[in-house]
């Protein structure tokens, strides 16, 4: 073989297998997508992706209706709008209507509720609304979950038996029963009780959203507590001894020495927990909270485009969880020691 030449075997021995593997990866992805598409063609499913955007944002026609009955007294053009003056028995009203949608002419007799014209308006679709509810519920529950988890975690390692056993009981109860059942208990048991009590005292009801948030926060709190406990216990006890030997109190030592160090270690498992929480919020549809999954179900029922919509739903969850995971990675870099 001539010097400097590069044979196929040399290529395979060096970079070749890596390139082939990457190629195989994309081939596989394409095969899966193609396979699904082929199968949907076999069952004669018609893909109508163009129908999906309207569930995010849509152009709605708003009709302008007359509120009184009477004659159209005058039509005065003003730019691209027309001012329609309607004169009734003893009242007069003026409506501003876009010129190209004008439906009446001078002298027409108008009944109350007749359409004079219409205009177009952008409106937020149900999927985007559902996404917002999911986001709202998740953010509140994450925040409460951190607070509950932090204090339960600290109570869990306390020397005081009352605190410790309370924490253990809470953690075991919550971790030992299904989230779905807990949501039912929060809404149908605690919610009914609480709302009845509120009603008896002349106060308004609490919306299901808050019971859903409570269920998620209390559920996540138990897991966060165990993460916090493990994080604190992973910090060498010498750190606590050094802090105490300088005259710092236990809470001071926790605040300034232990928790800042533990925080970095618990970030990755904490992120995992909150990603779970976002996904678990999809269960809240069963207590009439119209979050993303419930919204998707409603749209599927009316549009009959389940394939597109469920994929979209999954992708929207992915956007949320992926953003969270990116944010946590950013935090990890920010809090790195010496960084």
């Amino acid at each position, binding site marked *: 073989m001539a010097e400097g030449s590069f044979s196929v075997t040399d290529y395979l021995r060096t970079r070749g297998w890596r390139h082939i593997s990457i190629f195989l990866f994309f081939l596989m992805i394409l095969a899966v997508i193609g396979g699904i598409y082929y199968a949907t063609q076999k069952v004669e499913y018609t893909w109508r992706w163009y129908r999906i955007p309207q569930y995010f944002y849509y152009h709605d026609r708003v009709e302008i209706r007359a509120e009184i009955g009477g004659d159209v007294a005058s039509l005065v053009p003003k730019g691209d709008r027309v001012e329609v003056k309607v004169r009734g028995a003893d009242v007069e009203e003026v409506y501003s209507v876009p010129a190209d949608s004008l439906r009446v002419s001078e002298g027409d007799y108008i009944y109350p509720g007749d359409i004079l014209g219409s205009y177009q308006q952008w409106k937020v679709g149900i999927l985007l609304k559902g996404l917002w509810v999911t986001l709202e519920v998740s953010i509140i529950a994450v925040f409460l979950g951190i607070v509950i988890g932090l204090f339960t975690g600290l109570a869990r390692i306390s020397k005081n038996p009352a605190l410790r056993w309370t924490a253990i009981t809470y953690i075991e109860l919550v971790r030992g029963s299904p989230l779905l059942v807990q949501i039912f208990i929060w809404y149908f048991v605690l919610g009914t009780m609480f709302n009845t009590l509120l009603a008896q005292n002349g106060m308004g009801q609490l919306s299901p959203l808050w019971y859903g948030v409570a269920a998620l926060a209390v559920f996540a709190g138990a897991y966060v507590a165990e993460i916090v406990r493990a994080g604190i216990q992973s910090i*060498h006890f010498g750190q606590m*001894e050094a802090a105490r030997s300088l005259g710092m109190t236990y809470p001071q030592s926790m605040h300034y020495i232990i928790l800042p160090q533990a925080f970095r270690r618990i970030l990755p498992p904490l992120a995992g927990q909150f990603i779970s929480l976002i996904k678990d919020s999809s269960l809240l549809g069963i207590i009439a909270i119209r979050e993303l999954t419930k919204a998707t179900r409603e749209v599927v029922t009316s549009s009959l485009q389940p394939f597109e919509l469920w994929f979209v739903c999954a992708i929207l969850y992915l956007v949320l969880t992926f953003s969270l995971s990116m944010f946590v990675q950013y935090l990890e870099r920010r809090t790195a020691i010496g960084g």
Partner: protein
Amino acid sequence: MVRAENVYKTFYTTHKIEALVDVSCRVDKGEVVVIIGPSGSGKSTILRCLNMLEKADEGHIYIDGVDILDPKTNINKVREEMGMVFQSFNLFRHKTALGNLTLAQTVVRKRSKKEAEEKAMVLLEKVGIPDKADSYPDNLSGGQQQRVAIARALAMNPKVMLFDEPTSALDPEMIGEVLDVMKTLALEGMTMIVVTHEMGFAREVADRVIFMDEGQIVEVGTPEHFFKNPTHDRTKLFLSQIL
């Protein structure tokens, strides 16, 4: 300054360990006392009992006249006046050397940030590493870490310094730099209680040496007495093993 009377301490782990049995001793102001003894003899335990990192089961411990085993005593106040240096340094790993020195000053002593930093720089100068003020503990050598730890304890203006085997975790070439700092401190008249295996340090710096074995104080004396003609057989045996 420091007085322990009939102190007992028993640990219950897999089996019962009598770590301290009827230990009594006193350390006067300005004195340097070195505690030596084989491992497991209770020398670290008595040191840790002195600032309540370990709570003695029985007996009395007086620090500057305050009985620290009295439940009414605020132990944090007592600890403010006692510096402690650990075998494993225990520097706060998320803080720079400077941060290690200033934290307790601001949190406990309520000094201003500026005041604390000035004090910290003076002390870092004293232990010979002012240029490492902004380094994190993980980027310092063992000897440097231990010197920062000594400075951290000194930053609180303690009346007593406790040293728990300060050089045992160090590479041999770094022991000297830490001992030098401790010698300077002793010359300045600091009250020091040092648990160590460094016999050279004991001989050179100590006013008194306490020998402990099996949870008891076996022998107390000046370094001359101790290293030239110890009275007890156990002391003789120990010295013959390590010298």
